[in-house]
């Protein structure tokens, strides 16, 4: 919809857009997603202690570790060391982002936001290091929970440095005030869902079967709520003419990914534990779980990574919806 036809036009002044800052934020976001995948593989293959020292790798400087052992050695070593290298890449990109922001972006708050991104990536690396040095699986779980949070922060940085964000948002029209809230609740809900999922994924022998069952039931209940929220959000965003495509498109994509995630969740349970009523279905009854099998590992890791993607996409929708709403006001 063009600004001419809009009943209300935002009165914000355009701010200078800088391609370098935005490009770095986007590259950082794109780089974090495979980092999350490989981190997921570390957990799937129980490879967290495949390298017992940190920040070095078997006594080597992390970056000088022989590529032959890294790439052609044990699989556990490959995923753990790759995770560390990808984490370092995210760190370097964050440093570049801070420099670019201070140099090219006039927004003071954004400078400090980028510093926050750098602090977050350092903290995330330190958590990963603590998991190894202290050999504590609880740190692995916290590290696994804060990783998607960093992914969402990187995504938010990309959104807030985009041309669309910095323009007058001519598309901003009436909007739907509730949309921003709905999207925000979805961010919180999907993150809560990820935390519950992490409890199941990083479960230790120290918890009772009653506690585990409580987490399973909570995870299932929240999955239903998140799905409902995502479908409502997509419905509002898609069927309301007044809403910018910048919001409706990611909202629609988000709903599709949430539905995919539900399927991956069911798959994850089956490849981990089989269905509790397996006799009800001949296909499931005839399935034998293969421990650390290719498809089993892929499904479980994809479920974890898609959870991060949902949070990230929900962040995009929420930020854009809030931006439009605040401009209107």
């Amino acid at each position, binding site marked *: 919809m063009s600004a001419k036809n809009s009943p209300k036009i935002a009165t914000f002044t355009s701010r200078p857009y800088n391609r370098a800052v935005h490009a770095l934020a986007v590259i950082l976001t794109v780089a974090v997603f495979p980092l999350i995948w490989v981190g997921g593989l570390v957990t799937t293959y129980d490879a967290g202690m495949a390298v017992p020292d940190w920040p070095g790798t078997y006594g080597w400087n992390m970056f000088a570790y022989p590529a032959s052992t890294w790439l052609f050695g*044990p699989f556990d*070593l490959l995923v753990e060391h790759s995770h560390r290298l990808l984490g370092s890449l995210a760190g370097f990109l964050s440093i570049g982002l801070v420099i670019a922001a201070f140099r090219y972006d006039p927004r003071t708050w954004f400078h400090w936001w980028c510093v926050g991104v750098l602090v977050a990536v350092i903290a995330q690396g330190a958590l990963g290091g603590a998991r190894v040095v202290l050999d504590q699986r609880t740190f692995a*779980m916290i590290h696994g929970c804060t990783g998607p949070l960093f992914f969402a922060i990187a995504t938010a940085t990309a959104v807030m440095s985009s041309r669309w964000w910095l323009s007058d948002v001519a598309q901003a029209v009436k909007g739907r005030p509730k949309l921003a809230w709905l999207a925000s609740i979805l961010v919180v809900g999907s993150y809560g869902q990820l935390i519950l999922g992490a409890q199941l994924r990083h479960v230790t022998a120290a918890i009772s079967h009653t506690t585990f069952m409580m987490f399973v039931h909570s995870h299932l209940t929240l999955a239903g709520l998140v799905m409902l929220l995502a479908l409502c959000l997509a419905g509002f965003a898609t069927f309301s003419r007044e809403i910018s495509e910048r919001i409706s498109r990611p909202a629609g994509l988000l709903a599709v990914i949430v539905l995919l995630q539900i399927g991956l969740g069911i798959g994850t349970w089956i490849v981990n534990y089989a269905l509790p009523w397996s006799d009800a279905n001949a296909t499931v009854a005839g399935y034998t779980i293969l421990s650390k099998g290719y498809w089993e590992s892929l499904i479980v890791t994809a479920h974890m990574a898609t959870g991060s993607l949902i949070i990230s996409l929900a962040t995009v929708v929420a930020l854009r919806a809030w931006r439009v709403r605040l401009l209107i006001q």
Partner: protein
Amino acid sequence: MNSSAPRPPTHFNDRRWACAIAWLIPCVICLSGCDVPIDAFEPNRLFAKRLELNERVELEQVRDDVQVILEELFGTPDSPRWPDFLTNDSAVKHLVSIERLQRAAGAVRSDEAGVHFGLYREHCILCHGIAGNGLGATSRLLNPYPRDFRLGKFKFKSTPIGSRPTRDDLARTLADGITGTSMPAFRLLTEEDLQALIDYVIYLSIRGEVERNLLLRATFDLDWDDDERLIDFSVRESDAEQFQTQWQEIVAIVSKVANNWGAANVAPLLNISRPTNLPIVGDEIQNTEEQQRLAESVVRGRTLFQGKVANCASCHGMAGAGDGVVNDYDDWTKDWTSNAGLDPSDKLQLKPMLELGALKPRHIQPRNLQRGIYRGGSRPEDLYLRIVRGIEGTPMPAAPMQPENPLGLSENDVWDLVNFLLNLPNQSHDADTVQGGSPS
């Protein structure tokens, strides 16, 4: 909402939300429980409670003594031990190696060569629990429940009911998994990893059986009026003779339990040879004569299946759909319910046991054989074993066999039954029309 109306500042609300979320995340993480070190095995509270209920005694001191003895004999989850007297016993010295035990125990890690340690925690502990009691974190949601190793009973094995399984039996279950259940196939593990896990399962089973036997001995053999104890470590130096006497009683219990395992592993294996003159379903049929012999075998198998000797139909139903009348529980459930004088279907009676972590009893279900899915393996030899050996701990008995039982089944009868079972998924499943028919 009217966008033109003046609105109060939203900063406060936003900040409140941010604070709430900032608190919520660490709270949920903390509530999930920290990585508590696994420094001891869980005691067998259910069995102790059963004895207390049956005998109306209080075993508090005994339970403490038993844990001290077990730690002295078997160490801890991080640092397992294998009693020296078993290492020196020729009948059982090959049963468990301390090196393999140490590989399977402890925290999960791997080295630069890709060798994995802490295998039990990596692959088994979440379902089977620290002590192998089948009460792991995930156990309540699984069907069937994970196996409790401490009774020394294993379902799928080549040895008779009442005997322990062989290492090969355990290796087959580990490598092939159990279809349709939560027990995965671990065939991607190295042979060394599998052998280490087998050692650890045997270790947990022996440890668990010793614990039960110590509790039994304390309950029935000790003179309570004289404050007699299983062992008193405080008199190890001051009254060495008494200590040695008590210790030798314990050694005898451990040796007896371990020897059961040793005997199963040195006994001659059941010879399973396919009959030369009878094709088996799945074999390549060469001519119509073989086809005819196979069809006749399937018909004979049906007659045996529905007959009184094999008596399969009473549980599995006339058509093998698993719809016979069975209102029973497995031995692992009976161990803490009916054996403790408790009705498994009475929740109120079971309350003290459920509070100790027992899992809600479930009726055992006869297999629906029409599906062609067999938990103990689907090779003809696996079915032969299930018929001849039964399934330990369940109502599935071993078939009476000739010549021990003149009225029992012959080997050829068993192969006829195997043919009937293997052909069952291809047949009409109407109970009245299950006539054997032509094998597909």
